[in-house]
């Protein structure tokens, strides 16, 4: 079973994402900000990260940059999932090593489509 770390400061968004990902047979782990997510990744890297942008303590982009510097940190597929829906943010995310990008609002179909595109499904 593949693992997916859901990083979002909204408990509701994490809950919706968890349900969708569990239906897609992922084992899910959750973190409410980038720093907590990074701690989890330092212990064990997940196969995938579903990543919000705007969060307290450490935002999604800062987390991604730090993740990619960890040993083996280039391995997890990182899919942004954010309300930052403009081209500039998307380009920044791709440059920092994001594999895919979901513009909120999202649904099960979009998550499935994006995860399939990066070879997670």
């Amino acid at each position, binding site marked *: 079973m593949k693992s997916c770390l859901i990083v979002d400061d909204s408990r509701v968004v994490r809950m919706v994402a968890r349900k969708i990902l569990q239906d897609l047979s992922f084992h899910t782990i959750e973190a409410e900000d980038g720093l907590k997510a990074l701690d989890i990744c330092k212990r064990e890297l997940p196969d995938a990260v579903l990543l919000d942008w705007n969060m307290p303590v450490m935002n999604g982009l800062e987390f991604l940059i730090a993740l990619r510097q960890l040993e083996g940190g280039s391995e997890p597929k990182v899919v942004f999932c954010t309300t930052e*829906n403009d081209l500039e943010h998307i*380009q920044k995310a791709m440059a920092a090593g994001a594999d895919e*990008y979901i*513009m909120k609002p999202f649904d099960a179909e979009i998550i499935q*489509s994006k995860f399939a595109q990066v070879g997670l499904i």
Partner: protein
Amino acid sequence: MKSEDFDLLSRLVRDRSGLVLTPDKSYLLESRLMPVARKIGVKGLDELVVKLRQRSDASLERLVVEAMTTNETLFFRDTKPFEQLTRLVLPNLLEKRAAKRQIRVWCAAASTGQEPYSIAIALKEEGAKVAGWKIELLGTDINLEVIERARAAVYSQFEVQRGLPIKLLVKYFKQMDGDKWQLNQEIRDMVQYREFNLLHDMKSLGQFDVVFCRNVLIYFDQPTKAQVLERIAELLPDDGVLYLGGAETVLGVTDRFEPIPNERGLYRPVRKK
């Protein structure tokens, strides 16, 4: 709905589009035709049927048929057909058509353009391999309204996230106001659109090397499926290729096509002995 009303509507839709509506689909008539009823200012389907009975009104009949034909589509739908296109179909054509350097592709139910544009993008991504080739992409649909949308190539945020990898969104689309995205002119120029009914004579469309006719035949009855497939076979050379949807097959429908082994959804024409 009264059975005579259902009969009138289903006959009209079948005669014009080939779409077969069985009585268990009467809910579809209700849900899709209520907006048409509102549009023409009548209260419900009863009155809509009265209007249709009163006199022959081509524009009202068109509204009804267009509302009933399904327009569900997405970019790179099912992924596999586009992988087959660049791995198998295109290299084969580049070899066989090296003298002419011309390839013609037809999307027989182009809907709002996602399929023809996915083909255009897939071909564009092939870069130097197709440089200097004349590639004609024709997208047709029975529904004029969706053709207009295809030509405009403006898609919602929801639509561009279904099937389209983010790298291709960034590369080929520009962001408009709000949550709309428009495909760039270069890709739009690769596709010509035309209104066309699959039940009509296809000869005027010319010959094609590849025909995409995916997820259309499922709505037709068996004789109509056979007729459409046989006409498509006439438009393809021996080394041409037909794409059908994942849930569709030629088996038991016509012997004018045979499956290409190990390539799901791909068929080649069989010549009459």
